[in-house]
């Protein structure tokens, strides 16, 4: 695995805390969204009826998310809950095995090289690497495990958990608190306090405008392959932007603003 660098200066650290680097799975590490993971698992249900219903539900969830991005106000946890409600009745075994398959065959194969290099760089710089996934823990954990085999590893994985009944089958609900496209700032602060993360010294990597909350919480935000809205904000706020089309060079303090874009508009 190629080791890249960080678009940040070495961050000042509080003596009692440590800096973290937050990476969104969806959009940053891989272009696919959470509803696509749910659709993959649903499409591999044991029964045909469940497959059809599941895929239909996941696609509807994806469509709603598209609408929400257009400003319909559904960016919260509802679309995430809807995407995973299609997995009601799935056994824990099937969720875990299909999660591994999806992580190995889809996420790892299609992971953004630039993001992988940033994870490596953050680890090298002494940051605690945190993966934040809207996907289920079965997918996110499997992705982290698969990456760690011969690539960068995450110290902490924050993902959604499917509620299971006493027979080990998914009820279709997600365990609260749900990780939505927009991160709950109070929860992130609580997690930071629990793990001793210094948010001011931390880095965060986002892809969509829903990640603005996350990026706004840390001292060193960075946009990876940003959508139009996030790119605009990033330029306005002088955040670094990483794009895959351009060669990615290890950053130096003087390149803090951006690697491949000109001066912000």
């Amino acid at each position, binding site marked *: 695995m190629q080791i890249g660098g960080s678009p940040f200066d070495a961050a000042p650290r509080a003596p009692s805390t440590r800096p973290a680097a937050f990476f969104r799975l969806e959009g940053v590490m891989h272009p696919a969204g959470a509803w696509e993971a749910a659709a993959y698992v649903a499409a591999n249900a044991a029964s045909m009826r469940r497959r059809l219903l599941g895929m239909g539900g996941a696609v509807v969830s994806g469509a709603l998310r598209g609408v929400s991005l257009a400003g319909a106000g559904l960016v919260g946890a509802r679309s995430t809950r809807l995407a995973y409600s299609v997995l009601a009745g799935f056994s824990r*075994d099937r969720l*875990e095995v299909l999660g591994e398959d999806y992580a190995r065959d889809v996420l790892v194969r299609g992971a953004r090289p630039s993001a992988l290099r940033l994870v490596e760089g953050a680890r090298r710089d002494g940051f605690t690497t945190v993966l934040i996934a809207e996907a289920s823990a079965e997918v996110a954990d499997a992705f982290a495990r698969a990456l760690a085999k011969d690539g960068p590893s995450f110290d902490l994985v924050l993902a959604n958990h499917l509620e299971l009944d006493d027979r080990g089958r998914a009820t279709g609900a997600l365990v609260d608190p749900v990780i939505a496209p927009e991160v709950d700032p109070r929860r992130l602060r609580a997690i930071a306090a629990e793990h001793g993360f210094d948010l001011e010294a931390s880095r965060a990597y986002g892809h969509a405008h829903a990640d603005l909350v996350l990026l706004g919480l840390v001292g060193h935000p960075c946009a990876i392959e940003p959508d139009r809205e996030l790119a605009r904000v990033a330029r306005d706020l002088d955040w670094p932007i990483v794009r895959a089309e351009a060669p990615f060079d290890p950053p130096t303090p003087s390149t803090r603003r951006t690697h491949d874009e000109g001066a912000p508009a």
Partner: protein
Amino acid sequence: MTHGDAFAGPSARARSPLSVRETLRGRHILVTGFTGFLGKVLVAMLLERAPDIGRITLLARGKKKESAATRVRQLFERSPGLRNLRELHGERLSSFLAERVDVVAGDVRDPNFGIDPRVVEHLASSVDCVVHVAGLTDFEPDPIEGVAVNVRGAMHAADLAARTRGRRLLHVSTSFVAGAVSGPVPERLEPGLSANGTRFSPRDELASMESLVLATSRRFPDPVEAKRARIERGTLRALALGWPNLYTYSKALAEHLVASRGDIEVTFVRPSIVESARELPFSGWNEGVNTSGPLVWLVGTVHRRMPFAEDHCFDVVPVDSVARGTVLALAELLRGEHARIYQLASGDTNPFTFGRAVDLTSLVRRREYGRSSDPFERVVLKNLDSVVHDRAADEDPWLPFARKLTRTVRDAFSSFRAEHHLPELVRERWGDELTKLAARQAKSWGRASRTIGQVIEMLRVYQPFVFDNDLRLETKAVREATLRLGAEERALFGWDLASLDWRDYWMNVHVPGLDRWSLPLLRGERIPDDPPLALERELDEWTPSLVRDPPREGATLSLSTQALGSESAPTEAE
């Protein structure tokens, strides 16, 4: 010594320490059924983990061209089930075995196993325990064989044990002697009380079964018909007493007959469904077609709806776990601190269900078929996950319909005649090819029809275990025995099922093990042996010519290499 339903003073027993290795040091045991699946792993475990055992005498049948010793030697040389010993000792295996293992020719169907009386006399003077593993495991054996091997064989083992120095018998039975019941199954045996609570005399039952077998054989001159009638009538007898088939009936009857003896110490080891090894001789090893093999095979076919009860316990136990439990029972028996019954099952501490088994097997097949180069497997079979139907096999109309359909198609192809079915112009041009094609198709559809017939039959035989009954087998005795072990021996001999990760075992150990060691047998293929590691010499075999002198009372007997080499009597040693 204990004779209670379970064991005397379980808590006191659980508290006192037990060392398996110390207990087995210098002891002489006689093992039957070494050539079988469990027998090999049991002996492999004893020789690897308790190498200070005094002597293991293996009972084996000689064949026309091969002595019993030759058969046993060949197993040590090339059986995958004994691979661990070859890897451990390499070229020194021969000398290692010479000091610990010998062979006696015999057949469990015969009184005293058919061993020459002079050999019996000598063996008896040193054997501390008879470990009777041999048995038929077919669910529907011909009652002639079922009774001779499973019932009479156990009685012969008890008779022989009664003549030995130790007067102890460890009898390997099955958990399914509990019969057609559901719910918790305690480790209990009340001689003369059948599985459905009927009072019966085990001796009279054996006599009447043997009379029934004899009368049925006389009535039907055709051997095939006679066998079918014997199975049918024997099964009816088993059902009347609450056992679902002839296998469980014969094993239970053996327990009742042996348990009522007062002249020996007996302990019954009751494994549930014995399947692929976790670690010994190596992960995934299996032998023959055991219970789960056909079910796993069926999940990989186009048949999707499995007639199983989803939440019923599928009580599978890895063979090396069964060997651990058996060794523990043996050690406690040798110390006179044994339980009457050791159920070796997974259901009470770490239950696995048929629903999970089908789901996990489908997931294994899905991955395999996804990598296949065969488009049918990659596109069709991969997406045909099996589902539990939660309905009895005999209520499922699909398989009989499929059988009828394939037969009809086969008959249509079989009856094809170019001269009748084709116009002259076509016949002249393509008649021969089409006739050959029809013959090939008839054969292929006939095969499919036969396979479906076998599946229907298999599901009928399995129905009591996969749908009708839900046994929750208690395993208190073996767990308490485990508590007596120190940390080191617990790792070697302790009951380890509570920690078994079923998903990992099923997907990464058992199903790949079946694919490698069992399922090829269903396709008529042969399982290759390991590359042989030639032993320098034949194993010692007890023969009458070697035991001319009567043994001294209280002496420990061993066959020395020198004695065998000079064809003289075995030496006696304190």
